[in-house]
């Protein structure tokens, strides 16, 4: 595509997201608690959603989690813009309150496996050659000794031994038999109306880290690793990343109504929680927010992973800019993100919707209390999404009102996953809506800029390349990305990395630091394609 043609297309391009879920065959409704009122907190936290290519056909499939009364469903991408429900043939029919999902090839057999968290027993599904999933929870030693409210999860190679370990966040201890009813104590009210109780007033629980033993089993190392040390946190989403750039993956956890946690990886399977001093525990006023969803990206072009967290209504969303040493500044207001305070935000992601080389930002919303409608205020149980365009100068602009009807649809959304399901270079967004069918947001016209999608395959590192860090340079503009399991709100994005290249007609340089420590450099690569890169053996 010539430079002039790019300019012409850019002039004609208007962002127009449409919800194509129905046309794509995504019509199943996913139950998740009450629609008019909710008696218990378990009905509020909702469920995640995942883009994964389970059969390695190069097309992203979609896995949608369900609350009680339904089943999780895997939809196979048929390649014609439609998805087919393959749940039963894959052995994924389920029941219970599914919460989070994360993907990774934990046994390094070349097929992406799935882990699903529950209020109740989690499930590890081993992908058997893309043909079916085998529930190996028990044989992998991942059975839990009591009912836990597991929420976020992420496969992460904490010791870079080539085997994906597993982090699971825990929200709180919940038992309907002992949980007070709406209105029972001061923590069971919202703006004067009786609502389900919690999280305040409900017992805390601890987060979990399982070490992958490399033989198909896991060991709980929460205590010896330091992961279980923090007490007094209601943990939800998990975000992994090498925030202090020491070659070891750290773990950030969004916590509800309590300080969020940053576990700094000290090596040898040890972590220390340093969220407060590093500036990511609170908002800029030193107050704990109701953290829900998370993502990280180099949004400012400075080479460092900054963190975005969605929060509750009457709170700002939070953008923490990485100072380069793994400590952060709250730059929410300076970045122009201070004006949307009526939403309860959940799934979120940095993604370059217009392929201009700068990561934009989308978040999906929906209040936790359907009862809020009785107040007749401007806060609603179902609400629209927000799309911020990255202006390339450290600031964002809210373009939700002019970005197409899909952004303005009102749902009580929770999980959101980002991925290019039709490999056309434009990212789509799948959203899990409470008690509705999912949304699938796609632009009506492709953005004008060039692009590339990198599919990384580890050899010495874990096969999914989770933790691999990429620097990509095109047209003089450097961008960074990191392969990540989990994230958003209890969801899984495409494991491949998408980069918008604007007018760059070729990729000048790609530098990859693999989790094994191997460094790889590619130059003069062709753009507008999916580029598979395999880790060199030496």
């Amino acid at each position, binding site marked *: 595509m010539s430079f002039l043609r790019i300019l012409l297309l850019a002039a004609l391009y208007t962002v127009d997201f449409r919800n194509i879920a129905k046309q794509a065959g995504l019509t199943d409704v996913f139950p998740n608690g009450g629609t008019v009122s909710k008696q218990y907190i378990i009905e509020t936290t909702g469920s995640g959603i995942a883009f994964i290519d389970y059969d390695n056909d190069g097309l992203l499939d979609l896995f949608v989690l369900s609350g009680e009364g339904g089943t999780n469903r895997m939809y196979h991408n048929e390649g014609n813009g439609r998805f087919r429900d393959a749940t039963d043939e894959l052995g994924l029919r389920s029941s219970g309150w599914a919460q989070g999902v994360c993907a990774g090839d934990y046994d390094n057999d070349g097929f992406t496996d799935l882990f699903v968290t529950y209020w109740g027993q989690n499930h590890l599904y081993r992908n058997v050659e893309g043909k079916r999933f085998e529930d190996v929870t028990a044989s992998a030693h991942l059975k839990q000794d009591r*009912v836990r409210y597991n929420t976020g999860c992420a496969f992460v190679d904490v010791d870079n031994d080539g085997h994906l370990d597993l982090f699971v966040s825990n929200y709180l201890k*919940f038992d309907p038999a*002992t949980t007070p009813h709406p209105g029972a104590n001061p923590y069971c009210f919202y703006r004067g109306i009786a609502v389900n109780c919690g999280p305040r007033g*409900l017992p805390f629980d601890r987060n979990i880290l399982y070490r992958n033993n490399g033989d198909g089993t896991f060991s709980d190392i929460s205590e010896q690793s330091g992961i279980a040390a923090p007490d007094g946190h209601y943990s939800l989403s998990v975000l992994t990343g090498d925030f202090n750039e020491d070659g070891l993956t750290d773990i950030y956890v969004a916590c509800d109504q309590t300080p969020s946690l940053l576990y700094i990886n000290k090596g040898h399977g040890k972590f220390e929680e340093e969220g407060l001093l590093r500036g990511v525990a609170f908002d*800029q006023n*030193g107050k704990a927010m109701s953290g829900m969803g998370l993502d990280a990206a180099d949004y400012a072009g400075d080479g460092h992973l900054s963190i975005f967290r969605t929060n509750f209504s009457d709170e700002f969303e939070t953008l923490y800019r990485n100072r380069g040493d793994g400590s952060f500044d709250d730059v929410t207001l*300076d*970045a122009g993100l201070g*004006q949307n305070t009526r939403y309860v935000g959940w799934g979120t992601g940095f993604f370059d919707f217009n392929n201009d080389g700068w990561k934009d930002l989308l978040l999906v919303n929906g209040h936790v209390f359907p009862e809020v409608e009785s107040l007749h205020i*401007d806060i609603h149980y179902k609400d629209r999404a927000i799309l911020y365009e990255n202006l390339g100068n450290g600031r964002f602009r809210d373009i939700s009102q002019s970005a197409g009807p899909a952004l303005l649809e009102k749902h009580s959304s929770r999980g959101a996953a980002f991925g290019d399901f039709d490999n056309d270079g434009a990212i789509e967004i799948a959203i899990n809506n409470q008690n509705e069918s999912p949304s699938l947001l796609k632009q009506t016209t492709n953005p004008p800029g060039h692009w590339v999608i990198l599919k990384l395959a580890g050899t010495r590192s874990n096969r999914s390349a989770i933790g691999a860090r990429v620097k990509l340079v095109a047209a003089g503009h450097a961008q960074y990305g990191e392969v990540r399991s989990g994230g958003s709100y209890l969801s899984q994005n495409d494991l491949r990395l998408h980069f918008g290249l604007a007018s760059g007609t070729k990729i000048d340089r790609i530098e990859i630091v693999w989790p094994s420590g191997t460094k790889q450099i590619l130059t003069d690569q062709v753009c507008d394609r999916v580029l598979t890169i395999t880790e060199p053996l030496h």
Partner: protein
Amino acid sequence: MRVIKVALLIAAALHANDDGIIAFKEGRYSEALAKLKNAASARDRAFLALTQAALGDCKSALPGLTASYTDPTIARLTGLAAVKCDTANAFTRIERLQEQFPNDPDVLYTAARFYMKAFNDATFAMFQRTPSSYRVHELSAEIFETQNRYSDAIAEYRKAIETNPNAPELHYRLGRALLLQSHDPAALEQAASEFRSELALSPEDGACEFQLGQIAQVRGNAPEAKSHFERALALSPSFVQALIALGKLCSQEKDYKRAISLLSRAITLQPANETAHYALLTAYRDSGDMEKAKAEKATLDKLQKPPEGEFSEFLKKLGEKQPEQ
């Protein structure tokens, strides 16, 4: 023999007084009055006074109710009864009781009840005697605000301004209500306009300058925010929120020396202000003084511990309940 007889008489009297106290406790006040009429000890005289108060004979009760008692249980009971009997001095007595028994629910309830009654009486008098005063609308608006009825509050503030355009604080309060009523970014401009109107009336209103600074900050305009915070502080040098806001902006500008000075002053004025400690922690960290940053963290950790009290205890007990397996 005579000694035994006296002892028996004393025992009978004590027995009668105990029965009187039991009768009082069970609400049999007439019976209690009869049994306590010859009360001699301080305890018995206190219960006689309490009985008299319960029967509405405040005149007889007051001397006994207002006497000094060393037993805190009796002091509390007589103090509460004296509040009801001696309405002319009720507020003084309530203040004293709150000092002596700060966590007592009966004392707090009695205080709340009396203050509420005083509020209702004054409000009723105002509505009856000066119905066309702007103060009626102002008070109505304030009441609506306490009920989270911000639209109604805004309407009343506007009526108050219409009635008395030059009254101070109305525009300020209207601006605040506008911010509380709506999350729409457009409300920011409406509120800013009211704060500017208030400043036109009261050019030295530091609170308005602070609000305008906050609005500028939300809009991402740090330089404008800074100038408002500077003015707020010039007008009110002990304005803690302005000290903190300006301190944080100085940190952002890497002027750590001034940031630390402003934030330290805020902490001197309000030692338990968590926001100030957090901002100071950040300023120390960013200036490279990790030791002082850690000291601030330790202070913050202490401040953020949940307050002790009955409700915290209730929650702890709730936490001890293990979910059923």
